[in-house]
């Protein structure tokens, strides 16, 4: 009896069914909390024409940046694409379509997608390029724009701990977009650092209930750091 056991035995199985032209929603912020190995599997499969929804597009050769050299991404929906030369090149030449979306709007679009809310109003982006082609409406004397939600054929997630039912716990700021993305995939695939026994996770402290999770795999992670800032050097405040 399979029941609620979400564990799959290989990354191949984890990403089975992903096809050219699909939409993939990915957790992660910069290099933090990204599903590194699920991305590697998409790279290995050479799936193409993808629409990828993620706050960033990784860095060159790491994270979602892996999918750039072979031009696997057709369209990127992200809030920030800086610090990736290949990305910038493909965007400038028009090889890659980019839909820049404010970070909070992106988060809310993904949450709304998972929650069955097709659209919502937000003040963010009113009067800017982001508002172009979108409905404006006034509520209580303030202007808002209408934003539609996002769902994906696949959601790819990195969590810290899970039980085999797919109940997830995230760690520190590696949480970021992951719990939202987990709700927004037709098929939600999660890779974790540790799988614990069912019942070990405190039911009050589960960040993502297993109902959102379809497949689960334990992986090992490089966890590359983008900006290694160390005290007490005041020169490392970065800009």
């Amino acid at each position: 009896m399979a029941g609620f056991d979400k564990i799959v035995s290989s990354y191949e199985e984890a990403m089975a069914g992903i096809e050219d032209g699909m939409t993939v929603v990915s957790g992660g912020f910069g290099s933090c909390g990204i599903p590194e190995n699920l991305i590697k599997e998409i790279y290995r499969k050479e799936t193409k024409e993808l629409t990828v929804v993620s706050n960033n597009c990784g860095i060159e050769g790491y994270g979602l940046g892996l999918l750039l050299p072979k031009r696997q991404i057709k369209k990127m929906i992200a809030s920030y694409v800086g610090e990736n030369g290949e990305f910038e090149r493909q965007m400038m030449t028009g090889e890659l379509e980019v839909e820049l979306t404010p970070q909070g709007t992106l988060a809310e679009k993904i949450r709304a997608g998972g929650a069955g809310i097709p659209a919502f109003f937000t003040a963010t982006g009113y009067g800017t390029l982001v508002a172009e082609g979108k409905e404006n409406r006034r509520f209580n004397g303030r202007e808002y724009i209408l934003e539609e939600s996002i769902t994906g054929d696949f959601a790819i997630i990195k969590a810290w701990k899970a039980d085999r039912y797919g109940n997830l716990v995230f760690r520190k700021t590696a949480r970021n977009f992951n719990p939202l993305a987990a709700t927004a995939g037709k098929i939600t695939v999660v890779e974790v650092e540790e799988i614990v026994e069912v019942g070990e996770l405190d039911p009050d402290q589960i960040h993502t209930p297993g109902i959102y999770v379809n497949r689960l795999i334990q992986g090992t992670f490089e966890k590359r750091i983008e900006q290694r800032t160390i005290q007490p050097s005041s020169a490392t405040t970065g800009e």
Partner: protein
Amino acid sequence: MALSREQIAQRVSQELQDGYYVNLGIGIPTLVANYIPENMEVMLQSENGLLGMGQYPTEETIDADLINAGKQTVTIVKGASFFDSAESFAMIRGGHVDLTVLGAFEVDTNGNIASYMIPGKLIKGMGGAMDLVAGADNIIVTMTHASKHGESKLLTNCTLPLTGKGSIKKVLTDLAFIEIKEGKFHLLERAPGVSVEEIIKLTDGELVFKGDVPEMQF
């Protein structure tokens, strides 16, 4: 003399209040954290999902799972909390953050701000800036008053794509502390040793002031 980056941060820190939840943007705003008055508690929000950001870690405490919105490794203070990005922007969009400090390329007399894009040149994306600008009531923009070539960044109308419309009321530059209201820049304070005339010269939008404009105190 024009303020240094550190002095701009220091002057901003005078606007803090005890018990404030504050979001500091990348660059000069980040430096404000170094000038929080001794007798005051302030909590820093980082929009990637952290309330209660602390200092940079040591080699021993560095943690790849603990970064700020600028992707720098950080630590947390006692009483901090982590949350997801939707919750983080619920805080921001819902107006729960008391003060937001962020940089800009341009601001104008209508309170418009351009800070994320130079068409054909710099297209990195707005990140959380549009949400911060739309969500906060209390925003301080920090920037240099003019470019290196002497072109004013305080305009009648922003020329670059906007980050937000009509949302900025306070600007602190290396030369002046300015309030935006009724379609004008109001000069509140000037940097020590900088004359009102110099500020007028480097301000493109209409600048007004009352009587003697005081120097900033540090």
